[in-house]
């Protein structure tokens, strides 16, 4: 993802949600430019999930969820991700 997102992730301003989308964790630290970038990426992800879902005959939310699990597991330590209940937690 673009540098502005990677930096925000490293600073736990943005993180991977369990629904497969990027979430803003620290609203106060999120500039308009960052918000715009997050919205843009999330719309592009939704598009990608729709294509993946229809290619495999599964609901869109299911495709997004499987991707979320991979993204969350793959997130480096120090990044913040959502746990199953939706709480933001910092990867050890």
């Amino acid at each position, binding site marked *: 993802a673009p540098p502005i997102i990677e930096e925000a992730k490293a600073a736990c301003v943005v993180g991977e949600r369990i629904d497969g989308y990027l979430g803003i964790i620290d609203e106060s630290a999120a500039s308009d430019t960052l918000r715009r970038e997050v919205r843009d990426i999330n719309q592009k*992800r939704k598009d990608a999930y729709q294509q993946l879902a229809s290619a495999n005959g599964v609901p869109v939310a299911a495709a997004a*969820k499987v991707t979320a699990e991979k993204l969350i597991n793959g997130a480096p330590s120090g990044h913040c991700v959502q746990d199953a209940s939706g709480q933001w937690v910092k990867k050890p």
Partner: protein
Amino acid sequence: CATVKVEAPDKPIEINLNVKIEQEVRVKLDREVEDLISSNPDIF
């Protein structure tokens, strides 16, 4: 002789029906998701 005549009960019959329709979503998609992430570095 007594004839058994089944008459409509004055009290309504209560019927409870539980239906659970399952659609096992065979979501393995592992390889497909790996490809999706690796082929779209700008959004993942």
